């Protein structure tokens, strides 16, 4: 499909018109990855800048989890390289906050909300919690809007509350880069609004990457849309697309305003660094 011209709001929505580009927060350079014989990524190149709100989207099975694992340092690329905050992902862990789906949690695990959030202060193999961690934990609980739940058992919460507790856990580490995996899956509209309000507050202080299977719309907070692309036989690549405001989005999506993803556009990976979209 021919790329289309991007202009106006859509261009702003993708960050295609940029002033001085900010430093790069995360970068995939020609990354290929395969599970045994099954190729998942083929020469994927994309990046996001510090302070941006980026969304990585693609249908189930497209390879989003693989990209997540690579950027969290849980897997290594077969070729190419991944940089997070300028370093190998394994060395950037202290600066990254991760909000997993955590669908397989054990409801019989005895643990309070505050103790779950405290895990976000963990650093490596040694080290116990100290009193000075408490301030960061209190702030994180506040920012995610779950302060009043701190003494409750994690298993006694609703799905939406649990998700916000996991956001607080990621924030407790004071991350420069926040990664959320399907944050609104199985969430009611109220919780979704609460979550996006929290993300709006965080935006600007940290780079945010939301991974989702919803390929139609993204939150109005979004600066950059990255789509896990077509399978090319040897794996998929990742393409930057534009997004534009729309009135058609289902009510309550992302707690209010949504952008429609323009899948028939292709924005060059370097667009945010000064270059314009294809066809401009």
């Amino acid at each position, binding site marked *: 499909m021919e790329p289309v011209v991007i202009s106006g709001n859509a261009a702003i929505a993708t960050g295609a018109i940029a002033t001085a580009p900010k430093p790069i927060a995360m970068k995939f350079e020609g990354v290929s990855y395969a599970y045994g014989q099954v190729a998942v990524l083929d020469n994927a190149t994309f990046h996001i800048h510090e302070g941006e709100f980026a969304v990585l989207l693609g249908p189930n099975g497209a390879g989003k989890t693989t990209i997540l694992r690579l950027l969290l340092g849980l897997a290594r690329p077969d070729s190419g390289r991944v940089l997070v905050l300028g370093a190998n992902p394994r060395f950037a862990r*202290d600066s990254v906050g991760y909000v*997993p789906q955590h669908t397989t949690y054990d409801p019989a695990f*005895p*643990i309070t909300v505050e103790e779950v959030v405290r*895990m*976000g202060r963990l650093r*490596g193999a*040694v*080290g116990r*919690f100290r009193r000075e961690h408490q301030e960061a934990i209190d702030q994180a609980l506040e920012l995610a809007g779950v302060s009043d739940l701190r003494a409750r058992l994690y298993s006694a919460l609703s799905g939406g509350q649990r998700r916000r507790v996991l956001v607080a856990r990621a924030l407790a580490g004071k991350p420069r880069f926040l990664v959320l995996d399907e944050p609104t899956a199985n969430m009611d509209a109220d919780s979704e609004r609460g979550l996006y309000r929290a993300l709006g507050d965080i935006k600007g202080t940290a780079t945010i990457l939301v991974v989702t299977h919803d390929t139609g719309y993204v939150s109005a907070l979004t600066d950059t849309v990255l789509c896990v692309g077509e399978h090319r036989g040897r794996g998929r690549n990742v393409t930057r697309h534009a997004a534009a405001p729309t009135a058609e989005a289902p009510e309550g999506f992302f707690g209010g305003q949504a952008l429609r993803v323009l899948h028939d556009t292709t924005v060059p990976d370097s667009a945010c660094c000064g270059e314009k979209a294809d066809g401009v």
Partner: protein
Amino acid sequence: MNGFIGALFDPAMPFVRNAVIAGLLSSVLFGVLGAIVTVKRIAGLAGAISHAVLGGIGLALFLSFKGIVPGLPPIAGALVFAVLAAVLIGIVSLKAKQREDTVINAIWAIGMSLGVLFIAKTPGYADPMSYLFGNILLVSGRDLVLLAVLDVVVLALAWLFYPQIEASAFDEEFAQTRGVPVVAVFLGILTVTALAIVLLQTFVGIVMVIAMLTLPAGTAGYTARSLAGMMVGGVLLSALFSLGGLATSWTLDLPAGAVVVVMSGAVFLGTAAARGLLQAVRKRHSAAGGTR
């Protein structure tokens, strides 16, 4: 009961006092390791390790009897087999998820069968009963020292690495993103559990040790609000069951290990049933309130 207390302080019967000390020392391991084994959901793996231990006991008895390694104590063989089984099971669990069940059951069965075969070829040790079901009255001073040492080691490790253990049991992937060496934590837990199983089998036997590693901690888990609370509750319950079981078995002339396990199991199931009932009643109440 009076008879038991009398025997406890009777200088002519040191084995009763040893049994009580062993019960209390074991309770620390049952509670602390039991809570970890339960929340980490590795009771099945621990069960396989404990059964494979019989192979080591049989091998040590056989080697000692044949004069190949004179005077080799059964506990030495048990320790070797326990650690081997832990490493093997750990690797299988990490690397071969699809065949995990089959391989772990094979290790369980092969370990036990080897034990039976070695014991069959060792005259004088035709009865593996005391290893299978424990005989706490045979606990020696050396066993008590080893148990005390392991108690200290386990408490120190649990205190030192509590956040890492808790995080890797609660959400392994997240723990890994925080730099927690989850594989090392997992293999460490398995190895320490294997060592504990060897020392604990003198109390309840290799068949029932897994029951004591899950039931008291599981019962405590019903009301605990943290892993630490579950550990403390598990230790207290284990101590209660151990002392109660020893006194009962002494009074009624029953095997101590089995009495302790039956008590623990009855309290666990009773608590589970009571909670289920309570929840059903509450649900009915709130449903009735809702329709009013």
